[in-house]
């Protein structure tokens, strides 16, 4: 690995804080270091993901290891199918093998969480931090005033897209509002010309749209799904990943078509096309602010994200609102915003108290 397109865009630094889950993904290697508390900059692309399985609070940060592909920070990052060759240096062999095994063990751990889980009471979230950060506990108590449930998503780098997709479908399913459902179908259909305009070949999106996306949305629109069926769809690798990929493609197409607006957010060394191929279109690559903005605007779906960080500067959980532009959406029916929970490197779905 570590060849070709790089993804070290530094525009959006976020805070990394104490958190309860070990945040890891298949990309994080040995750079997991433990801090105690204070804010810390990190490049947001580092694919940190929650596994929801480890309950010791720790602050996990990754930096250079996962960063630039075109100029890798060390020589140890080659892993290919766990195999090294006879003429590779002994040292390289060991490192490569170790990396591979490490990645596999993380992947296995991550895969213990279903792609999308059943809802849990928000108290469960609190319990995660019982041995951990006081700041987090306070924030969760605040959060619990208005939110009753959390639905976790697998920390595989696709969690934003999957959480968005599930929450969107579920919101439409629950709304029973036919206008909303029809306008969602239309937003999806409207993405087709975007792909063409953004320069994608038909073979990339057409089959997926026809076989999965349109079909699933129609079933939602016809009110034929209940929660269990929706969960089954999103827990089935093939369909679930098709939806994730399609949302990635919408995000990428939107960014490409609005490149003047969004390119300034990228690091100097990356053009929009390279950025899209390495961190939007590519599976398992995490979403950042810029991705969220693009997807919500492209589909005209409002999203609110609760940013939970270990910073004690703010007692409240900070909500970021991503509302699509007013222009063009006037007169159209509006959907109640989807609510997601962000903890550094990971997204889950939240449910407001009625």
């Amino acid at each position, binding site marked *: *690995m570590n060849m*070709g397109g790089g993804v070290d865009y530094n525009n959006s630094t976020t805070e990394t804080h104490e958190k309860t889950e070990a945040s890891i993904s298949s990309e994080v290697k040995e750079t997991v270091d433990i801090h105690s508390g204070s804010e810390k900059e990190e490049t947001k692309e580092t694919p940190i993901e929650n596994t929801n399985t480890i309950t010791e609070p720790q602050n996990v940060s990754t930096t250079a290891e996962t960063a630039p592909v075109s100029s890798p920070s060390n020589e140890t990052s080659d892993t*290919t199918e766990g195999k090294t060759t006879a003429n590779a240096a002994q040292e*390289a062999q060991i490192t490569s093998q170790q990396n591979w095994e490490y990645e596999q063990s993380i992947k296995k751990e991550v895969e213990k969480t279903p792609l999308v889980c059943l809802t849990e009471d928000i108290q469960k979230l609190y319990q995660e931090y019982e041995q951990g950060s006081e700041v987090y506990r306070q924030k969760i108590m605040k959060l619990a005033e208005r939110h009753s449930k959390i639905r976790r998503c697998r920390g595989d780098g696709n969690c934003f897209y999957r959480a968005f997709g599930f929450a969107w479908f579920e919101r439409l399913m629950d709304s029973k509002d036919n206008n909303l459902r029809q306008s969602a179908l239309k937003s999806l259909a409207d993405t087709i010309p975007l792909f063409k305009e953004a320069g994608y070949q038909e073979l990339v999106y057409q089959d997926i749209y026809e076989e999965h996306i349109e079909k699933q949305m129609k079933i939602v629109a016809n009110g034929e799904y209940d929660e269990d069926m929706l969960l089954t769809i999103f827990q089935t690798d093939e369909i679930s990943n098709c939806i994730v990929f399609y949302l990635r493609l919408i995000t990428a197409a939107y960014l490409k078509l609005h490149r003047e607006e969004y390119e300034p957010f990228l690091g100097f060394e990356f053009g929009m096309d390279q950025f899209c191929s390495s961190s939007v279109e590519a599976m398992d690559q995490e979403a950042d602010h810029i991705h969220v903005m693009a997807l919500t605007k492209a589909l005209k779906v409002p999203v609110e994200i609760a940013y939970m960080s270990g910073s004690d500067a703010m007692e409240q959980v900070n909500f970021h609102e991503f509302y699509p532009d007013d222009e063009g959406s006037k007169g159209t029916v509006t959907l109640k915003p989807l609510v997601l929970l962000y903890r550094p490197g990971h997204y889950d779905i939240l449910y407001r108290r009625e």
Partner: protein
Amino acid sequence: MSTEARRRLMRDFKRLQNDPPGGISGAPCPDNILLWNAVIFGPADTPFEDGTFKLALQFDENYPNKPPSVKFISKMFHPNVYANGELCLDILQNRWSPTYDVAAILTSIQSLLHDPNPNSPANAEAANLFRENRKEYNRRVKEVVEHSWE
């Protein structure tokens, strides 16, 4: 087997025939659409020039959600190619995207030939020579170029 993977591979094949990128060719085996043979011509003005390198691409029913496994059948001497012909290339591993079709995969491999990443070595000897002794590196590459004609 997934008909989607089949259908997508047929579309990939059509695209490769109708709009072939320069210096690559590929086709599925007549009796197995999941197994492809491909040829990459060594890019001009590189030590790989004039080489005709054969590759095999093995797809499975998860394509295009998952990448194919790709290996050189022809002998290769390159910092990012293992002795068994397998490649160390990000888009075939952790940067895979279903946006890549067979033409895009082969084009990426072609550009890897003249733009190796010696910091991510699959062949330590080739990586060292590439960095420290370009003349010897070119000579070794020339050997596999000639070998590729056999």
